[in-house]
Structure formats: C-alpha cells, structure tokens
C-alpha cells in the first residue's frame, strides 16, 4: 500500500518514539473514555427510564449491565479488532533512519488527536502527480521511503492498537458526565411507550414525562424509586397493563374534553383548499377553512401559476394547489378580495371571520408572456400596411 495519508515521526531515537506514542495514548484514551462513557451512560439511563415506565425490569447492577450491553453492541470485527467504533490503530514502519506511520483505523477524533501531535508530520506518498506544496526532490524521497517501508501490502508493520481485549467495566464515575439530557430521555421513553401501547405520540410523551425523574443521580440508578425492581405478586397488573388502563381512562377523558372544545373552536391545520366565489354583483369572495387568522393584521393572497398561498404577518397559513385557471383569472382581476373563514364542522357559527385580503400576483409565466405579446402582430391587422411602408423606407 502506498498511503496518501502517511506520516513521518520526528524522532531520531527510541526514547522519542516511545514518548510520542505515550502522548498519543494519553489523548486517545481520553477520547475513548468519552465515547465509551457516553454509550454506557445512554444505555444505563435508557434501561432505568424504561424500567420506570414499567417496560423493563431494573437490573441488579445497572453499571455492569450497561457495560455488558455496550460490549455486546460493539463486537469485534472479523479481523479481531475489539470494538471497531471505539478503537484506533496506527501502523509504524521503521525504514533506515526514519519512522513512518499510517493511521489505519479510528474515528475522526483520533485522527485529529494524531495529527495534532507535535512530532507527527504529514508525509504521504502515492503514485501519480505530486501535490503542489511538495518539492520534486522531497516527493522522490518520500516515494523511496514508502516503497522500502511497504514492499508488499499488509506485510511487516508494527501496529499500535489502542484497545486490545475487552472494553473495561466502568462505574458512575466514568459515565456521570455523559448522562443524556431530559428532553432526549423523554423522547426515547415516549417512543418506547408508543411502540408498546400504540397510544399516539403526544400521549406517550405525557406518560413518559409523568414517570421518569428529571434528574439522574447515582442513587436513582442504583435504588430506583419505583417498586418494579423487587418481584411483584403475579396477580398485580404489570407496568404495561397499568399504563394501558390509566392511558385508556385518560384518553377517554381527553376525547370528551376535545369534543367539547371542537364544537367551540374547530380550527383547520392549514388552508389546503379554497373556493373562489364571484357574486352576482361582481364581487369576488374567497372562502377558506377556518384557521383563526388575526383580524387586526393584513392578509395577503398570493396568486401563482396554478396555486394560491395565504399569508399573514410573514406566516404562511396554507398553500392551495390544483387551482383551476378560471379561478386564477378571476383573482388576477382583483386588487383585494373578501376572504371568509368558514368552519365546516363546528355547529353554530359557520362563517367565523371576514378579512380583506390583498391579492398579489406571484406568477412567473404570465409576467413573461405579457411583454412578448406586445410584439406579436397579425399580418393583415390594423396599420400593417403603414407599418410595412415605414419599415421599408428606413
């Protein structure tokens, strides 16, 4: 292999090489601890939160089980490299008086740490044109060294592997800095509850917020407040059943409440359809679903080529596509239209509000066609003869 991303170590003695590798190991171990600690923290907290929601059991030793879970999630790759996502490998070649290195494997943080080392100089080489910032002579030398270092691919390199054997077991001290935030935990648990009970995202979120603690402490992980850690009597409802029955009752109540609210105030999510009505005295009205436009702020109706958009105060309230040409033409004739918000579902007031909307033409195609139309003349049209005479006289 002729590495384009090779390096040369600025070292002339074994002591310097070993010092350099020591420094890199210190940096890399720090990066490893960060990445691994984050994974373990996520796993431990997720298990704890799921257990709080009654979807899992509290493990006896949360830290050990989280470490085990992370270990299982990061198995060794076919070449035997432990936890490839967290590991890092650098190959070293000793050629005459030079120590060459290749960054073989590792995440971008490791590469950054490696390249930031004072004794590591980018010294890559490959067959092909040399980069502009390397002199001809130096490029030739690099070629010679690398060819001597790697006569055959995969042969004769010394490997520095950050992690050999198992990922270590860590406790609260190693992970407490990386405990995920409340929002992240909430959405995770809500997704789990939603999956288990299929009760809708909003409700699952509410449930999750009710059961998980806001702060995660060591004690909370070791001694969860919920009783699900100790064995329950068989007759008692399981966590999932309990949540389901409570959720059922809550849902019923909410449905009734929302039904009452719906009658009072049934707003559409957006204006996705509209009817253009021209009255017998020539006024143009646009009837749209009730979205609760503000009566104090100007409404704009933008007419494009085949679509309408309603906006107010810079907020777009909807976009209507598939608008027939006739409607577009009727709207283009107006400077303002009366927009009526119509409530199709709620009883009582069907016409909810009236606005004067300013019509603006945002169509592109029409605007381009109009000036071009002015140059088109019929052959035998009015004044054609005079025009021809005048042009021939020029």
């Amino acid at each position, binding site marked *: 292999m002729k590495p384009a991303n090779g390096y040369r170590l600025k070292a002339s003695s074994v002591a310097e090489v070993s010092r350099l590798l020591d420094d890199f190991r210190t940096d890399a171990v720090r990066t490893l601890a960060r990445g691994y600690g984050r994974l373990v923290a996520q796993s431990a907290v997720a298990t704890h939160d799921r257990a709080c929601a009654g979807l899992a059991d509290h493990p006896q030793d949360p830290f050990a089980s989280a470490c085990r879970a992370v270990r299982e999630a990061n198995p060794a790759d076919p070449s035997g490299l432990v936890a490839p996502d967290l590991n890092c490998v650098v190959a070293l070649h000793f050629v005459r008086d030079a120590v060459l290195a290749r960054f073989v494997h590792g995440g971008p943080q490791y590469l950054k740490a490696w390249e930031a080392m004072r004794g590591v100089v980018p010294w890559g080489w490959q067959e092909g044109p040399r980069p502009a910032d390397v002199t001809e002579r130096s490029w030739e030398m690099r070629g010679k060294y690398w060819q001597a270092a790697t006569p055959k691919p995969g042969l004769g390199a010394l490997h520095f592997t950050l992690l050999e054997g198992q990922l270590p077991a860590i406790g609260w001290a190693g992970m407490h800095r990386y405990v995920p935030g409340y929002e992240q935990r909430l959405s995770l648990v809500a997704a789990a509850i939603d999956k288990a009970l299929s009760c809708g995202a909003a409700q699952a979120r509410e449930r999750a917020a009710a059961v998980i603690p806001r702060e995660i402490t060591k004690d909370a992980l070791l001694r969860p407040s919920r009783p699900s850690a100790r064995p329950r009597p068989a007759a008692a409802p399981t966590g999932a059943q309990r949540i389901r029955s409570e959720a059922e009752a809550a849902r019923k109540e909410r449905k009734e409440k929302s039904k009452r609210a719906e009658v009072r105030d049934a707003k559409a999510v957006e204006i996705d359809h509209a009817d253009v009505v021209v009255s017998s005295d020539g006024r143009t009205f646009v009837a749209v679903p009730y979205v609760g436009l503000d*009566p104090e702020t100007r409404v704009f109706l933008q007419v494009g080529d085949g679509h*309408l958009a309603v906006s107010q105060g810079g907020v777009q309230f909807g976009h*209507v596509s*598939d608008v027939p040409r006739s409607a577009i033409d009727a709207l283009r004739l107006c400077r303002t239209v009366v927009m009526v918000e119509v409530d*199709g579902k709620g009883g009582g007031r069907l*016409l909810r509000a009236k606005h004067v909307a300013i019509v603006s033409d945002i169509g592109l195609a029409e605007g381009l066609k109009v000036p071009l139309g002015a140059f088109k003349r019929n052959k035998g049209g009015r004044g054609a003869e005079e025009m021809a005479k005048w042009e021939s006289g020029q």
Partner: protein
Amino acid sequence: MGERAVTEAGVIDETFAGLAEPAEIHRAGRPDIETGRPGDVLVSEVKKFASEGGFKKFAEDRDSLRKKDEEIDASVKRDPLPDFGVRQQPADARDFEATGDSE
C-alpha cells in the same frame, strides 16, 4: 381589516348580498372534499340569511338612519356664510394673466 364573527351571521354585511345568487364558484384544491366545501357553506349561509330577510333589514335600517339624518339636517337653521371680502377675479381675466409671459 378583518372582523371576527360573534353571532351566527356576524360577518355578513350588505356586500354579501350578491352571494345569494353567485355568478361563479371555482373549487380550488383538495378535489377529494366534495361536501361541505367552504364556498358551498358560504353561499348556503348567505342564502339562509337572505331568506330570513337579513338584507332587507339592512336596507330598512339604512333608510331609517338616512331619514333621521335628513330630519336633523332640515332642523338646523342655516345661517348665510359670513362675507370676508375676498373677491375672486373672473375666469377669463385669470387665464389672461397666466399666459401673459408668453408674449
């Protein structure tokens, strides 16, 4: 700019009168919605309002208001405008002055 309905036919005013017999209705967007289109609801509500005599009542109210105004106007005694002594030149003389510098 806008008006929010507080009563059932709160937003309907005289300008809506022509909607009882609309000239054109164009349906835009969501062809899957066939019943309860906002345009149909608008027209049927205005028709209902018209059949209940809503627009007639508007006209009557306006007439009675105008009558009242006219009565008030008629009751005010008109004094002749005071004469401040400002005399305007006749129109032909003004025109003469305006074009005088073009001689």
